[in-house]
């Protein structure tokens, strides 16, 4: 069994996958990666299933050592990264030979970076998923000294591919759908909400992201007397002090604060990855438009592999240059597949 040894880890490093759908009625939210798109990108880079587990790194990575030859891919928020001291590209796949040391530093944009391994992390499954759900007491952050098992890699030799990520690391425009409680806000309050350049607060995590209004706090006509209802990731709650809070993957399953709308799943990675201080602006999408946007996004994610490119490496940075087959003419060039 392959494994990755954790020599050091930032405080927000957890094993994540697509989470645990199906437990909402039991009070357990789906959880899983804060930026699901990054999981799909890593899976495309390694040519494997999107439901395999990866390491999510909130803000800061760690130092890791391959206990066997491994393949890795890096996705999500770009972070400084090197293998045995040689800088490597983000949004790309690389070989991590046995004994090699992978160092991942802080984010240079965005919030959540991801480390994927060929075969996925093979940590224990609880309630159908490997994802840590810290709010529910499932799993713990990854810590120094841990050895993370890695599953069987079906394509151990396929490395050196890269993918241009969708820009989503600086805030920007976010589309939302009206929901059951949008009507609790006056048209003036809604108009103000749509023109407000919110800044992302430093307070934000896998449960929710707090937004700072540019002017007065927001108020709904129902105040704080709303009956608790089911809440879902993407819901924009206006909390007691009038500040919007976008619920994220590890949110509670019910909530009593009035919700102004629900961010489209297609735009949720942009909220998750908006760094503190970044500006987010909201606009409502009509139901039909939203359905088309979500369907198009699902198709696009399913075909991410079509956008893979060969990673062009600078020979000066290839530390083991002489071990590579550099003479393409050594074979005829027309051998079968």
């Amino acid at each position, binding site marked *: 069994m392959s494994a990755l040894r954790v020599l050091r880890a930032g405080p927000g490093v957890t094993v994540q996958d697509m989470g645990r759908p199906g437990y909402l009625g039991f009070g357990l939210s789906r959880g899983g990666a804060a930026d699901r798109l990054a999981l799909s990108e890593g899976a495309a880079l390694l040519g494997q299933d999107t439901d395999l587990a990866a390491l999510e790194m909130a803000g800061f990575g760690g130092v890791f050592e391959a206990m066997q030859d491994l393949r890795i891919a890096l996705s999500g928020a770009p972070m400084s990264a090197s293998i045995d001291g040689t800088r490597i590209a983000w949004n790309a796949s690389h070989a991590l030979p046995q004994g090699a040391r992978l160092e991942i530093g802080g984010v240079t944009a965005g919030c959540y970076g991801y480390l994927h391994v060929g075969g996925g992390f093979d940590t224990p499954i609880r309630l159908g998923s490997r994802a840590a759900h810290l709010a529910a*007491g499932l799993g713990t952050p990854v810590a120094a000294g841990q050895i993370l098992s890695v599953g069987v890699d079906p394509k151990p030799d396929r490395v050196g591919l890269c993918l241009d990520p969708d820009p989503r690391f600086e805030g920007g425009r976010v589309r939302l759908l009206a929901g059951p409680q949008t009507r609790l806000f006056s048209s003036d309050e809604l108009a103000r909400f749509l023109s407000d350049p919110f800044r992302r607060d430093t307070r934000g995590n896998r449960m929710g992201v707090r937004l700072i209004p540019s002017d007065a706090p927001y108020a709904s006509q129902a105040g704080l007397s709303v009956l608790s*209802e*089911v809440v879902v990731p993407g819901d924009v709650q206006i909390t007691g002090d009038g500040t919007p809070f976008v619920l994220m993957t590890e949110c509670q399953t019910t909530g009593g604060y009035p919700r102004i709308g629900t961010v489209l*799943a297609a735009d949720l990675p942009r909220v998750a990855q908006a760094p503190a201080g970044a500006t987010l602006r909201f606009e409502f999408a009509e139901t039909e438009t939203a359905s088309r946007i979500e369907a198009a996004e699902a198709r696009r994610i399913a075909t991410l592999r079509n956008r893979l490119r060969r990673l062009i490496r600078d020979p000066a940075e290839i530390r083991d240059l002489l071990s590579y087959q550099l003479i393409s003419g050594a074979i005829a060039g027309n051998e079968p597949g």
Partner: protein
Amino acid sequence: MAAPRDTTRPGGAGFPRLDPLGSDGLLVGFGDRLSEAANRAALAFRAAADTALPGVAESSTSLASVYLRYDPSATGLADMRAAVEALLAQRDWYGADLPPGRRLIRIPTVFGTDLAPQLAEAAEAAGLTPDAAIRSIAETRVRVQTIGFAPGQPYLGELPPAWDIPRQSRLTERIPVGALTVAIRQLVLFSVSTPTGWRHVGQTAFRAFRPDSDTPFVLRAGDEVEFVPVPADMLDGLCDQGPDGGAAFEPLP
């Protein structure tokens, strides 16, 4: 601007009400305040939707509403809405029976002391002496109205009107697993350790969420619960009895 409540209909005017929730969900509301009828309607309608509506991927209830998630690549919103409306029209959901297989669970509880430090404060808010507050909670058989917020965590009600006390404005930084808390005529028995605005009046050794057991979520909506007062020095012994914490289960007819 809210319309006056229509008392001739169990959920009030405009209910049941259907709203999209996100691009793959529908919320079926049975009322804008908690009532016995709206809660029964939500429980019964969810059970029916799970079996009668083929497009439902996942469902959940809160106190007076049902959330239905569907797969938008297989079912459109319009079709889902039509199917839900047809099911709603089939019967009077507000008059529905409680779900079958319900149980009565008696959970030993230490009221007050250092283990549950907000009993006196909560009693005062309810206009009761601490002893009267303990009697009032212990003598009220409450029902699991919904499971939510945290895994396996029950909202229980309804307590007598004196308990219509607000949540505290300041959050308690961390409440232990098994804590019994009170606000707005409801009790919440905490399944995880978390910050909360509810007041901590009792402590149990009961684990409502057992992630590594065959029954990770122990309580079900419709179950009834009595919190039986025990002395504080019994808690350690109850903890030693395992995740039931000395609770006794019996089937309800």
